[in-house]
């Protein structure tokens, strides 16, 4: 059994296709996780990442079908995701509704809405073609996975550093972090805590919008109700896995991406694995990972604590 496991892993580790699959999911997760990392730095916990992904995927698919332009589809996808983000942001951090309740309701609502509309409308898309970057894509094993991808994939190389820069090199980022660590002090210092928190969620809306578009146009190729299928939550937990550092978050996305991809890679390599087991494994792994890491890492002090001036 162990021998089988080891040889399976070895096969996966040496298969280019496996890397491609793994990074497909990793990058998809990373679009959401990076945005959520920004948001959690300001103290919010948004389980509506799932809804943002889904809204973007649906809207981008329809957009692609109607306009034929991937770029326009991206904009539409981001727009849809921002719409969801705005409900989360405004209801939870301007209207002080419980952020978990809002997030959960959004997930249910958007799933229902997308399924409903998908059955009423007809549209079709196809997987977008890869854009090959010369030389780099010739690197053995990982070259194809990293540099011979759909153009939407490459956006992650932009999104991650930009988010890092925003959070650590700008005044906005400083204020964002203070809102997440000690909102009372930030408030006394003249910072609008809830405004920064809302803005963090809007950033999430943008990145998740890209992620959802990427998912439907590049990773999967067509829309279906279950296209996100709970993987938005995995993006959330990548942030915890990473101890609320961006580096760790990205690492978490890679790890979970690998596991998510086993479902494709293993059968392709000739391994027979129980479908249910494989489908559950990323979630089980996520839980295990949190069980190991959550006790040790330090979250932003005010994470998931709504800020209302006058109340402690």
């Amino acid at each position, binding site marked *: 059994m162990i021998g089988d496991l080891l040889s399976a892993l070895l096969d996966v580790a040496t298969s280019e296709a496996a890397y491609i699959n793994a990074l497909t999911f990793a990058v998809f997760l990373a679009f959401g996780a990076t945005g959520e990392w920004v948001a959690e730095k300001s103290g919010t916990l948004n389980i509506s990442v799932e809804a943002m992904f889904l809204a973007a995927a649906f809207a981008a698919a329809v957009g692609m079908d109607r306009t034929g332009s991937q770029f326009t589809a991206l904009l539409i996808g981001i727009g849809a995701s921002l719409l969801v983000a705005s409900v989360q942001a405004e209801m939870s951090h301007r*209207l002080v509704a419980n952020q978990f309740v809002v997030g959960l309701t959004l997930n249910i609502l958007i799933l229902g809405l997308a399924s409903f509309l998908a059955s009423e409308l007809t549209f079709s898309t196809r997987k977008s073609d890869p854009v090959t970057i010369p030389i780099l894509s010739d690197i053995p094993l990982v070259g194809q996975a990293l540099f011979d991808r759909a153009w939407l994939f490459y956006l992650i190389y932009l999104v991650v550093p930009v988010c890092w820069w925003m959070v650590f090199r700008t005044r906005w980022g400083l204020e964002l972090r203070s809102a997440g660590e000690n909102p009372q002090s930030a408030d006394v210092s003249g910072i609008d805590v809830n405004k920064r928190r809302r803005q963090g969620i809007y950033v999430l809306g943008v990145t998740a919008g890209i992620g959802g578009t990427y998912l439907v146009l590049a990773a999967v190729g067509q829309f279906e109700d279950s296209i996100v299928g709970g993987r938005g939550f995995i993006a959330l937990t990548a942030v915890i896995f990473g101890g609320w550092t961006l580096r760790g978050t990205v690492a978490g996305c890679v790890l979970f991406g690998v596991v998510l991809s086993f479902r494709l890679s293993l059968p392709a390599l000739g391994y027979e694995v129980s479908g249910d087991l494989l489908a559950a494994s990323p979630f089980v792994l996520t839980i295990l990972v949190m069980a190991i890491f959550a006790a040790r890492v330090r979250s932003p002090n005010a994470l998931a604590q709504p800020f209302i001036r*006058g109340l402690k």
Partner: protein
Amino acid sequence: MSTGFDESEVDAISLTPGTGEHEDEPASTQSTTSRRLAVSGEVLVLYLICIAIALGLSALLVQVTGGSAGDVFNALLDGSFRKPGRIGLTIGVAVPLLLVALGTIISTKAGLVNIGQEGQVFLGAAFAAYVGTEMGGPGPLVIVALLIGGVVGGALWAGIAAVLKYRRNVPEVLTTLLLVTVGSQLVGYGLKNQWLLLAPAEGRSNRQQVSKQLTDDVRIPRITWFGNEFPISAFLALAIAALVALALASTVWGFRVRMLGQNPQTAQRAGVAAERYGGGAMMLSGGFAGLAGGAMLAGGDFGNYTLVPGFPSQIGWTGLLVALVARQRVIGAIFAALVFASLRTGSGFLAATGVERRVTDVVQGLLVLALLIPPALLFLRQQRRATAAAGDRT
């Protein structure tokens, strides 16, 4: 990680949150009866407006996609109570919703965020199916046993999240959520294996992955009142609702659970061990969801007494929403369960209108969001009044 403010805090409308930190800023001096009445009137109007907006948006959605809002509305009314026998069906659907909501109320009062009811329902139904199909003996005994099995299944599933929370500090909002998918895969696996849940080959087509059907004597008896048939588990649910309300309000246990939810540190000082009371509340919450699963299976309104993939069919999620909409109050939960059940049974009549069933999910979601707004607005206004009195910028 605390969830901070929750809707039930808004009920303290008569207070300004002058917590008396500084002697300069004394406590509230308001709250006369007439003021409260005026406020209640305002509250009602606010709710009505928000509900109207939600329904209006839904109607718009229907119109825009080529359907007729009027037809849909009529179909919903027909399907939920107008046509004969439908009320019975609605009650049958409301039963598990109420049970799930009751469990959610308990965990919320304890300060926990349990959003994994969908998975807990499924596990409960699975345990109930196993007991119901494998256990021999007199019918009523098996029924009771399978319901207990449901409770156990749901409680165990929620228990995983509780253990992770209290031993490893993992936020339960995430674990319960993730466990929903894991649970569904687990039961799915069970439905593929005969030694677990899968029915033997004869009597079902090869591609069906379903459990054995519960035999006649293992089904919850149904009664007929005024032409409407529904399982007697409805009475059980109401009785349990009364018990829960009583327990939370008047027992020492309920007092301690509420203490835990409102101030865990003070509770610790007073002898309320978070692990014990919180973990217990969590498992109770899962147990209620599991009971709902068992009641669904043996009640007959879902899946024809057979466990199938996707069995919970959103009852878990909806039950959670029922509790939210009811603002964690038992009376409200009964009412809201009926409303949400009506949406479901009403949607059964939508086929004739050409509008896709899923539209009721949208209506549901919009309603919940809409109902979140009035308490939040009121709370804000209360804050604004207090800080305006204090002169702070808002």
